């Protein structure tokens, strides 16, 4: 069984409130992305954050899983993931939800087959399964003409 590892590195200086960190991906896809505690919980995001990176991971993961289920070379799949960080009583900050919005076009695909593929993609998406223990995954999927 192939075994794939992916790595990322962070440098953090200072304490939580006034410190800041920089995030680097060895693939070269991104490097030295700044982030801080203030920007992580701000309503208006000015830097990336762990939650934003998880949203990117989830949208990417689900899109691939659905492509794998549909097996349509002409498919176009648009997925967005909205990851919610909230304060949970007695537990501090917790990632409580990831809401996926899925819009797909696949010539000739029946609605029923699409719905079945979405269910299978949710069951098969490694990231959906990973966070299911700690957070709610909600899917709003629509097949477009």
């Amino acid at each position, binding site marked *: *069984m*192939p*075994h*794939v590892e*992916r790595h*990322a*590195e*962070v*440098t*953090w*200086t200072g304490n939580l409130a006034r410190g800041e*960190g920089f995030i680097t*991906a*060895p*693939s*070269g*896809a991104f490097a030295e*992305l700044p982030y801080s*505690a203030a920007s*992580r*919980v*701000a*309503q208006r995001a*000015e*830097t*990336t*954050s*762990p939650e*934003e*990176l*998880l*949203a*990117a*991971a989830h*949208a990417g993961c689900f899109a*691939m899983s*659905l*492509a*794998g289920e*549909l097996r*349509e070379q*002409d*498919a*176009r*799949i*648009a*997925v*967005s993931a909205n*990851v*919610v*960080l*909230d304060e949970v009583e007695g537990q501090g900050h*917790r990632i409580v939800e990831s809401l996926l919005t899925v819009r797909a076009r696949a010539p000739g695909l029946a609605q029923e087959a699409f719905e079945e593929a979405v269910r299978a993609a949710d069951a098969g998406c*490694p*990231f959906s*399964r990973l*966070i*299911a*223990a*700690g957070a709610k995954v909600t899917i709003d999927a629509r097949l477009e003409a």
Partner: protein
Amino acid sequence: MATERKASVTWYGDLMSGEGTIESVTSGVLGPLEVDWANRAEDAQGKTSPEELIAAAHAACFAMALSHGLAQDGHAPERLETSATVTFVPGTGITKSALTVTGSVPGLDEDGFRKAAEDAKENCPVSSALKGNVELELDARLQ
């Protein structure tokens, strides 16, 4: 108050021969980033993958939680270098996230540092979201 962060992806084609793009994220600092199956499941040839993004999220979350824990105990770190390595076994799923940290923390011994790191590994929000379905590992040492 809840904080929301969003990312949008478009995928064209089937899984094996198709390709996708992480078009945008809430902050605007990432994207467009290309993704495809070969870069995810074989060698990463310059493209990111869900597992790399999870690794980035986890290393970032862990660093923040540890800086907070250390400061609360009166040992604010000068510098923490963290990493996460996420293991993906196609067909099985995401099986492990291995965290490492090297820290410069004035006045703290190795035991105290390891204890704080262990606590951050168990309790940072990303660990909490992943825990239960994935093995978490930690290697913590002072510089």
